[in-house]
């Protein structure tokens, strides 16, 4: 691990404000870096000074009394254990009844020296046990400290996990939102591709050799609407380009008609864009040049009329006089 990076973490580590993962990085690096340890000691001293930013307060006397009672009780208990362990050979004597025969007493007295030696051995054993006990107490205290540290690290990790889960949920929402935007973009691309394809089809038709044009003019005279029809004699297909069409009220639609004598045929509906422009590719029932007139009318949408019934917007003649 880069020592310089670890050095940047030391202030927050000394303050106890690092997240658990970063704290582990610091703790792994410290044993191998005396310089970092020295720097950490200095920063810890600074953090320790922050305690003096709190106004001092006189604790009640009962706190001191309770503490010292607790400590004295602890000391007394340890001393009692030590004393009991040191007098195991004396107590049995007090329990011997006085009626024991003098001879037996005399025999037992012969063992005094041996018992004295045994007592000394037991005292040494007790001393050793107390030393071991002290070591165990130290280890217990260290383990308690480690447990405290671990508990704090666990709480920090749990907080991090909760934060990560919230972030994950947010990411999933963003992914779903992005997928929706992507689908919408794809739909618009498809729509544009269709329009480009239609325009290329129109262009190839309009620019083909032998194509004749016929203009459509406003039927009422005052409109800005205009149209031009591209047709090829002998063929049933034709393209009509419109401009200046006004936006119709809801329920109305532009309908394009071919007229042959008194017979009129609807060959398609026209939908203008926001600028009033529109195009229509028609497929006539017979060669387009067999019809004499064309017109664009306003009809009720969905009515499928057999003949024009609404206002005529544009009209034009196909036959040349």
């Amino acid at each position, binding site marked *: 691990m880069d020592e310089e990076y670890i050095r940047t973490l030391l202030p927050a580590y000394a303050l106890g404000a690092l997240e658990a993962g970063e704290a582990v990085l610091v703790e792994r690096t410290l044993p191998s870096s005396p310089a970092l340890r020295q720097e950490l000691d200095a920063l810890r001293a*600074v953090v320790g000074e922050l305690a003096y930013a709190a106004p*001092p307060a006189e604790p009640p006397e009962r706190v001191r009394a309770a503490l010292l009672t607790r400590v004295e009780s602890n000391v007394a208990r340890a001393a009692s254990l030590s004393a009991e362990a040191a007098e195991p050979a004396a107590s049995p004597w007090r329990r011997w009844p006085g009626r024991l025969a003098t001879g037996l007493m005399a025999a037992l007295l012969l063992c005094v020296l041996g018992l004295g030696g045994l007592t000394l051995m037991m005292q040494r054993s007790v001393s050793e046990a107390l030393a071991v006990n002290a070591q165990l107490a130290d280890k217990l205290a260290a383990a308690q400290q480690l447990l405290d540290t671990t508990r704090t690290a666990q709480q920090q990790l749990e907080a991090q996990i909760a934060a990560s889960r919230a972030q994950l949920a947010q990411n999933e929402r963003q992914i779903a939102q992005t997928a929706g935007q992507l689908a919408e973009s794809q739909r618009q691309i498809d729509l544009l591709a269709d329009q480009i394809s239609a325009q290329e089809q129109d262009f190839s038709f309009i620019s083909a050799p032998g194509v004749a044009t016929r203009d459509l003019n406003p039927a009422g005279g005052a409109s800005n609407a205009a149209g031009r029809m591209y047709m090829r004699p002998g063929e049933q297909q034709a393209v009509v380009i419109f401009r200046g069409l006004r936006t119709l009220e809801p329920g109305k639609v532009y309908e394009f008609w071919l007229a042959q004598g008194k017979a009129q045929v609807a060959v398609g509906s026209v939908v203008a864009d926001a600028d009033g422009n529109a195009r229509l590719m028609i497929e006539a029932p017979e060669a387009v040049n067999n019809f004499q007139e064309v017109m664009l009318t306003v009809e009720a949408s969905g009515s499928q009329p057999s003949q024009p019934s609404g206002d005529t917007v544009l009209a034009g003649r196909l036959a040349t006089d």
Partner: protein
Amino acid sequence: VTKTLERTAAPPTLDDDALMARVATGDSQALAALYERHSRAAFGLTMRMLSSAEDAEDVLQEAFWRVWQRSATYQQGRGNFAPWLFGIVRNLCIDELRRRQSRPSKADGGDEALLHGLPDLGSDVHEEAWQLERRRTLRTALAQLPADQRQAIELAYFGGLSQREIAEQLDSPLGTVKTRIRMAIQKLHGLLHPRGFDSETL
């Protein structure tokens, strides 16, 4: 050991390390002397963090009990008893705050609380004078920090919050909070070191 512990001031000839050496041998009077010397600062810290006299008393007693129990793990010769004690006190306070499962939405008294709080002199005039000087020096150093840096270390030290928790509480980017804390501690180190408040002399 049945001797009664009298309330005595810390012997002026014994520094903290010397008293801790005695505590490690089971000398409860040495612990009492350390209590006399540091209990007011430690109790002030617990009151500041917990805002509850009852909880603060429990924490103070438990902290000095741990000093007694863990005296063997104390590193002698480095003059760092006070930071060690305050570390124990602070960890106990943080445990208590987490038990409450409610953090202060803002440190009591706000950022300015770091700058105020005048001590009243107690019976140990020498020790109190020394602590008063420490407080004045610390207050001068803190006053030189930008307010946002003071606020960050306030929340970390007295609120027991991690950098991420501070960022969430202040609604600030985590990187900004990290920078504030790093710069604040480094600047405090630079300001306090020349005055003798470092690991070598404390």
